[in-house]
């Protein structure tokens, strides 16, 4: 197999795993409910896996709220992810999960997700600055939706990152919707990437349904960052296929039946065109099995006890 074949397979493996989990959770939540909000990433698996694939383990990730694809692709196990979702002590946040969880694993470079949209920007740029100060070879990827791209924190953090040429890649998942708000009615620019000019670094639009294309664009941006040439913004065009959160009835949505044919392509299908059935079928099966086994393990793990609520405010 060529390197490219290997790469496609590796990306496909994560895309398939994310998809398996997305579908599993969809059913699980329908049957059991969910405390808080679960924001499904269905349809965005390709870009999540493709982009994160371009990072090293030592690179830092600030993920968005749309699903688990980021953390999984960065190396977090399903068992810990599910444990977080279920509020088990075996999750990454020691039982403080449950509801809209905030996966974190410093050893894997997974550094969290701002509950207040846009708070990732200064945090991520700060992490990049830290790497620069320490002379460490690390790149920071900050994921965000096109809705969050309106926050002034993007402007401030990106401006300073641009001036200091910090090793950051801003990854915008433009899925067309911010809850009920369609992008084209809420943006003064055609693309989020158009705004990168204001920060003095490149903004690149890429087909978000093509994981390999996303990986290529991301790799270039990561290279740039690693080489000291500063930040980039990558805007992956995708589409939110389900509600904002699982259970959202989307009565506000007016694009039903007229989904953009490019943006609504299934990223799994797009990748499969590069593979044979003998290649992806075992991966798909393994993914389903992995998800089920991991979920069972997570379910069996101990629930967080009341003491969890009262610790971790302070480092002693």
């Amino acid at each position, binding site marked *: 197999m060529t390197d490219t074949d290997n790469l496609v397979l590796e990306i496909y493996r994560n895309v398939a795993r994310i998809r398996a989990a997305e579908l599993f959770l969809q059913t699980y939540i329908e049957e059991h409910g969910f*405390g808080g909000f679960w924001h499904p990433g269905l349809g965005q698996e390709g870009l999540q896996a493709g982009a994160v694939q371009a990072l090293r383990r030592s690179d830092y990730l600030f993920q968005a709220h749309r699903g688990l694809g980021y953390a999984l692709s960065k190396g977090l196990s399903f068992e810990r992810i599910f444990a977080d979702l279920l509020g088990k002590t075996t999750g990454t946040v020691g039982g403080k999960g449950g509801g809209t969880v905030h996966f974190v694993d410093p050893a894997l470079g997974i550094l969290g997700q701002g509950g207040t949209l846009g708070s990732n920007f200064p945090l991520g740029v700060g992490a990049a600055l830290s790497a620069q100060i320490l002379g460490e070879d690390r790149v920071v990827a900050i994921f965000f939706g096109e*809705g969050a791209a*309106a*926050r002034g924190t993007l402007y401030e953090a990106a401006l300073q990152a641009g001036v200091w040429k910090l090793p950051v890649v801003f990854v915008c998942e433009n899925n067309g919707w911010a*809850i*009920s708000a369609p992008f084209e009615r809420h943006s003064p620019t055609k693309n989020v990437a158009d705004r990168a000019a204001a920060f003095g670094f490149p903004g690149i639009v890429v087909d978000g349904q093509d994981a390999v294309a996303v990986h290529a664009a991301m790799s270039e941006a990561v290279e740039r960052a690693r080489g000291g040439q500063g930040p980039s913004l990558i805007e992956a065009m995708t589409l939110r296929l389900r509600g904002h959160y699982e259970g959202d009835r989307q009565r*506000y949505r007016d694009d039903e039946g007229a989904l953009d044919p490019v943006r609504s392509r299934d990223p799994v299908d797009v990748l499969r065109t590069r593979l044979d059935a003998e290649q992806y079928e075992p991966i798909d099966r393994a993914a389903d099995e992995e998800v089920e086994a991991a979920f069972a393990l997570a379910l069996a793990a101990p629930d*967080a006890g009341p003491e*969890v*609520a009262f610790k971790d405010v302070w480092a002693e």
Partner: protein
Amino acid sequence: MSTTVTEAQTEEMTYAQAINRALAEEMRRDDRVWMMGQDIGAMGGVFGVTRGLLEEFGERRVRDTAIVETFIVGGAAGAAMTGTIPVVELQFADFLFIAGDEVLNKLAKWRYMHGGQLELPAVVRAPMGLVGGVGAEHSQCPEAMLLNAPGLKIVLPATPADAKGLLKTAIRDRNPVIFLEHKGLYRVKGEVPVDEDFTVAFGQAAVRREGNDLTIIATAMMVGRSLEAAERLALDGIDVEVVDPRTLVPFDMETIATSVEKTSKVMVVHEAPKTGGAGGEIAARIQEELFFHLDGPVVRIAGADTPIPQHPVLEQLVIPSVEAIEQAARELNAL
């Protein structure tokens, strides 16, 4: 207690519907009133509070914004200075701090700074408190963090009727008002006066339950929990008075003094963390003004000094439960 014009006719509705009603009535009454916020239009708000308002009042007066909290509040301040009455929504009260400068340095101060030449009749609606599994950055009760910025009126409606009546007063007030809706109360039902002239005045506490042994001062979701605790205590002959200040600024010290003079024992109950919470202000003021009427300290029952855990079960552990209120009241009563 309330400056109700006609309470004769009421209708049962939820706290969320009562807010919706107030918005609709005030927008009909006064053309200068308008709204902006995220998802308030076609979606009717993430908590459904603004449903139907876009349809009735159109896009000129009901505006969906981008995710631009500094503009939502700062723009409201600018619009309020220039002849309109903005009633803006932040999706979660926790986002008040994203617009901290606009809330604390603009809305609160710009009238004073300019010698009264500017007025800022804006209302910022901000849903606060626990609602289940939304975590530390979406569950806070921020009232205490606004209380040290003179110039802001701070409103904490605890019932559907108050939600309607206080919001109407807020919209009619010539000062900036932070209107803190409790997310955990949105679905709670109650009788609400239908009269369009029904308002609830600021600075008038409501005695939610009369009692002779002990006064509980509670706000927002803690009013209901305190009333429940009071009912349990009544079974043991402990007669609790529950007072809801409704607004922290202005603050009705008179009603509280009357109650304290009667009971001589006071507890303050709120959901926000104890340290630095509004209960400190209330307790300090009561002991300052009524020290020699007190049989014992003003006791504060409040949230733990932790952020709110994400976990939908654990989150309840860090805010006062009915049992905790009941238990503390028993102890205070036994003094």
